[in-house]
């Protein structure tokens, strides 16, 4: 059986979970939230199975490698990371809105991979530059960081909606502010780790740990933006709208680092 089949099933389940969460917000029924969470967990399990299966299939094809090596695989792993971070974070913040944000992103990303047609899902052998033990640690830390930033982006947007429109169903602004901050402080550490493992990898593949390649530079830019966020938060006590705007800017930089660089700028990181 094909791994993409499992990805499609996970996509549907995430959508259903998202739908239940919306109902839960509208009708304020606890059992709906529990059901939505169960579906999210089932979807996540199937999503995990698809990744493991792809890993196994690549070995059966004789080109074995962790499925973290091209655009398709990175998108599947990105949405997986968002769900992973969400399922951990919800122990601390059992707030249905974090679920809505996460499941929504996971669903959108997976739908894009299957529907856009521009994302090749075939299992390919690894080119020499990608054959490195650093691949796994670098990709995992980078995408966990991106996942944290995606959730922070969602809560910042909700925060602005809450402040400007004041819908009654959106949770209180202080909770959203707190979620944004927590996600970014963890995401910042993961991003630092991602940059460090990337530097170590570049040192073995290209003989230098830092070379101001566009992808490297954009990860640095992203790092600076979130670094600014943490400093105005902790040391200057900024809260609220201004902080949300920095978080949103940071996520734009994340997207540019992840995707924009590859299409718009020339560099060594031409694979994703």
């Amino acid at each position, binding site marked *: 059986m094909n791994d993409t089949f499992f990805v499609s099933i996970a996509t549907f389940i995430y959508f259903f979970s998202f739908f239940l969460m919306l109902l839960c917000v509208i009708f304020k029924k606890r059992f709906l939230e529990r059901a939505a969470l169960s579906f999210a967990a089932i979807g996540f399990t199937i999503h995990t199975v698809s990744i493991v299966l792809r890993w196994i299939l690549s070995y059966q094809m004789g*080109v074995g490698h962790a499925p973290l090596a091209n655009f398709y695989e990175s998108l599947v792993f990105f949405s997986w990371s968002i769900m992973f971070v969400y399922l951990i974070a919800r122990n601390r913040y059992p707030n249905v809105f974090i679920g809505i944000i996460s499941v929504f992103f996971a669903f959108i990303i997976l739908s894009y991979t299957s529907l856009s047609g521009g994302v090749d899902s075939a299992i*390919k*052998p690894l*080119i*020499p*530059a990608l*054959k*490195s033990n650093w691949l796994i640690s670098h990709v995992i830390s980078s995408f966990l960081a991106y996942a944290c930033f995606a959730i922070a982006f969602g809560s910042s947007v909700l925060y602005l909606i809450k402040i400007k429109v004041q819908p009654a169903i959106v949770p209180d602004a202080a909770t959203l502010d707190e979620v944004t901050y927590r996600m970014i*402080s*963890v995401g910042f*550490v993961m991003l*630092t*780790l991602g940059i*460090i493992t990337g*530097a*170590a*990898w570049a*040192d*073995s*593949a*290209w*003989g*230098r*740990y*830092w070379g*101001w390649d*566009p992808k490297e*530079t*954009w990860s*640095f*830019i992203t790092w*600076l*933006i979130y*670094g*600014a966020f943490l*400093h*105005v938060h902790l*040391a*200057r006590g900024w809260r609220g709208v201004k902080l949300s705007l920095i978080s949103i800017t940071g996520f734009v930089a994340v997207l540019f680092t992840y995707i924009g*660089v590859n299409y718009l*700028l*020339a560099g060594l990181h031409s694979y994703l």
Partner: protein
Amino acid sequence: MTGKLVKFFSSVKLTVFLFLVLAATSILGTLVRQDLPLETQRSLYSPTVFSVLNFFNAFDMYHSWWFTALLVLLALNIIVCTRRQFARIGKLVFGSREHFDDAVFRTSPIRRKYPVRGDIETIRRESDDIVRELISAPATKTSADSFFMYAEKGRYSRLGMPFVHISVLLILFGGVIGTLFGFIGQMNIIEGEQSREVTLYGDRETKNLEFDVRCDKFTVDFYETGMPREYRSDLSIVDRGGETLASNAVRVNHPFVYEGLKFCQASYGIAGALNYLVGVRNEETGEKLNLRIDAVTEMSLPDGEAVLVLAKFLPDYKGQGPTVLAALVGPGEKRDMFRIFRDGSRFNRVRKSGLTFSLKDFDVLYYTGIQVSRDPGVVFVWTGFILIILGFVLHLFFSHKRVWVKLSGSPENYELWVAASADKNRKALEEKLDGLIAGKLAVEQTT
């Protein structure tokens, strides 16, 4: 004056400002190509734009004086901040582990006071249990009708942030050392040959190594799909006497390090070919003949006066495959260049002489592009990387918690004072403390 300067450099405003300026200028550096020679850049822009960009070193921005100056400002900023931070936390981290100070019951973020009655020994034991469970075994001062307890945990977690900040300094320092005392460049070595000359990146100057590097063999390996699987250069280090000092294979992601010099597989190319087998056919007589030619040389044709000259090998001529540029030189004939294509290709030309030539076989002669670098700053960078992670772990996963308990008053109306503080997640500590007091302090509480 120094006061003002210190204040300027200790401000987080400056940090945020520098972060944002570094980010903005770095964006610029990804819009303007940094990897092209100046002449190419000149052709990309109008003369005015070019001179403005060049004035601001925009074509090699990350090594420009002003970008360096921003990083230096950041370093000063970190130094001053960390000093100040140490002044604040030094006593907390390295001070005495017995902290009996009455003031905490008025100033701590978490404060409680309970009137209690009963036997002092029981109250002490119960308080001791609470503190143990909340934090750790307390240090206790006792007298006849009072006691004072103090306990703390995780004081070193306060070093997390200074570690992170100092690590950034170390990384910047390593970068400076690398730029000042290291070098990076490339050498192209043809299979079987050796060289000591490295062409440095950037200024294109050359640098001679202390020894020769010989490429014993270069191989490139493909998957069935045609994608490259592996590039491999077998290198030897050869001293001036011709003696081989070391040999190793270099593959992508598997550099070879010799005496602080790092050799990486960077590129490869076709330098030429060897062992040509050239087929010659006389179109009139139908006579066929194969010529073995070792390298690009002259070769007399056996049946006549003419000499075949192989002048240059081209790995691919306009998508028609490999060719050899050749000339046939006969007595009194003027040189006429032509191309010899692969066997079976219809481009093989019949010459005036009535002969057709074809390239039947040859061995490709590769050159390997080896990147050579030396970076004495890299130890500082790695140390900084490890420390920054350590700092983050201390900062994220540990917190400095402290608790004080004091019993005062007379047996008729004792007062039990409790104070606590935590540098992170204070609410959790507060809830746990209240829970423990409610559950364990069995002494009758008067309201």
